[in-house]
């Protein structure tokens, strides 16, 4: 029995949410960016979360507490496996005077919806807080356990 796995899993969760937050910040910062090094306007980005079972650790034998076999680990961590580009269409605005206007006078602006990004930001920070609470709880439980040795 140990709280190491809880701590690792919560830390991974916090890390994943923080990456998500970074991507959201990038989206918000580049809402009006019509020019990128790759050419063309900025395109909205998103993170892809994926479950990461903790099975590499061979002493996941705290699984004497669990009913399942060690190969089917019950310990599920998380990881950002990819940052993908949003394929939704760009926003076209008629601005013939703009240096990046195309032949028809339209400028392609990033497909970033600020309201959508704000909602995502709230969700990400809420999830981050939840993982942080889990981390603190695991820490407190571990500390109290050690205190049994006192007196």
């Amino acid at each position, binding site marked *: 029995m140990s709280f190491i796995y*809880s701590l690792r*899993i919560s830390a991974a969760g916090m890390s994943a*949410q923080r990456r998500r937050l970074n991507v959201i910040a990038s989206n918000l910062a580049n809402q009006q960016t019509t020019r990128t090094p790759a050419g063309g306007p900025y395109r909205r980005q998103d993170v892809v*979360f*994926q479950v990461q079972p903790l099975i590499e650790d061979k002493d996941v034998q705290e699984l004497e507490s669990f*009913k399942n076999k060690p190969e089917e680990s*019950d310990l599920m961590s998380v990881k950002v496996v990819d940052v993908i580009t949003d394929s939704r269409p760009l926003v076209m605005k008629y601005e013939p005077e703009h240096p990046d206007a195309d032949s028809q006078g339209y400028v392609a602006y990033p497909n970033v919806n600020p309201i959508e990004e704000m909602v995502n930001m709230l969700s990400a920070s809420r999830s981050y807080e939840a993982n942080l609470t*889990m981390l603190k709880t695991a820490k407190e439980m571990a500390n109290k356990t050690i205190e049994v040795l006192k007196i």
Partner: protein
Amino acid sequence: MTVNGLFDNTTKLLIKVMSLRSAKADIIAGNLANIDTPGYKARKVDFEQQLQKVVGILPENGLPLTRTDKRHLPLNGDLTDVRAVVSERQNDLAGFDGNTVDLDQEMAALAENKINYLATVEMLRKKLAMLKNAIVEGGK
């Protein structure tokens, strides 16, 4: 002289419950870490039924003292066989991405598990303190 004989059944039960609740914390941690993971199904942990089988259904007061050792409450069966059983939470929260984790549900489970765990730790501490007291005072 074995130390294992020093622990009565209640103390062993307290230790067992501590490891079960620690396992439960791991599962809750996994749910929270994957709160935004597409397709992830929230999981829960059960062990109380198994415990009740081993501990037996106890009456509020009084217990017929028919055992040879009157100091200990008996257990039906072995505590070591009690495991945390992990299963999917049944709720209909699956959004368009198939994720079923409910933040409020998990936070409530987290808080409850924590309170119960800390209470168990304190009870264990008290049992051990009484045991130590008996050992120390008995030598005087």
